[in-house]
C-alpha cells in the first residue's frame, strides 16, 4: 500500500531545491521523517545537501512541528524548512 502525501518546502530549501510543493506516493518502507529525508536526498546533490547534511532542517506534519522520529500517515501534509527567524 502506497501512502500519498503532500510536501511543502520553505525559505532557503524552497529556493535551493526549486520546489515549493509536490504530491508524492511513498514506498511502503518509508514511515518516518528521517526515512523520508533520506529518500528525498537520493534525488541528487542539492537534495542531499539540503536534507541530510549538517544544515539544520525542521519538519512539520499537518502544521505541527515534529522531530525526525515522527511517523507519517496517508494523506498527511509534510513540510521541510530551516529554523525559523520571525519576530
Amino acid at each position, binding site marked *: 500500500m502506497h501512502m500519498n502525501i503532500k510536501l511543502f518546502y520553505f525559505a532557503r530549501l524552497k529556493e535551493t531545491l526549486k520546489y515549493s510543493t509536490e504530491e508524492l506516493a511513498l514506498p511502503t518502507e518509508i514511515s518516518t521523517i528521517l526515512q523520508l529525508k533520506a529518500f528525498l536526498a537520493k534525488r541528487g546533490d542539492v537534495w542531499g545537501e539540503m536534507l541530510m547534511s549538517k544544515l539544520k532542517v525542521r519538519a512539520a506534519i499537518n*502544521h505541527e*512541528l515534529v522531530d525526525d522520529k515522527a511517523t507519517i500517515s496517508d494523506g498527511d501534509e509534510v513540510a521541510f524548512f530551516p529554523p*525559523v*527567524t*520571525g519576530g
Partner: protein
Amino acid sequence: MIRVQTEDFDVGLEIQQLRLAQPNIGAVVSFVGQVRDMNEGDAITELTLEHYPGMTEKALEAIATQAKTRWDIADILIIHRIGQLKPQDQIVLVIASSAHRGEAFKACEFVMDYLKSEAPFWKKEVMTSGESRWVEAKHTDEDAKHRWQHHKN
C-alpha cells in the same frame, strides 16, 4: 486574536481596543518589533518575510493559548507582518491584557520568546550592495524559550 498581514498596524488603536474590551483589566503590556537597519555588520535596505500559511496561524494561536493557561490573562493579540519591509517598519506586535501588570509582562515576553523559535516565519534581507541572504536563526532565541521551561512562573 491572531493576525498575519502585509499591512502596517496602529499600536495605539490596538491597545485601546484591548483595554476597553473588558472593564476588569488593570494592565495592558505591549511589545513592538521593528526592522533594524543593520545585521551581522551589514547595512540592510530591505527585508522580505516568508511564512507557512495555515501553520503560522495555528502556531501563534497555540502560543497565545499556552500563555493564557499559564498566567491570569484577559486577552492576547499577536499581529505579525509578512512580505516586503524596510528598516524601521513595524514587524510584530504582541499585546497582553490582565487584571495585574505582573502577569501581563510575563505573558508578553513569553509569547515573543516562543514566537521567535516556533512560528514559521523566515526573513530574507537585502544589503546595500544589492545582494540578498537568508537570516540565520540565533541560539539566543532558543535559549530564551528554554528559560520558560525551567521556571514555574
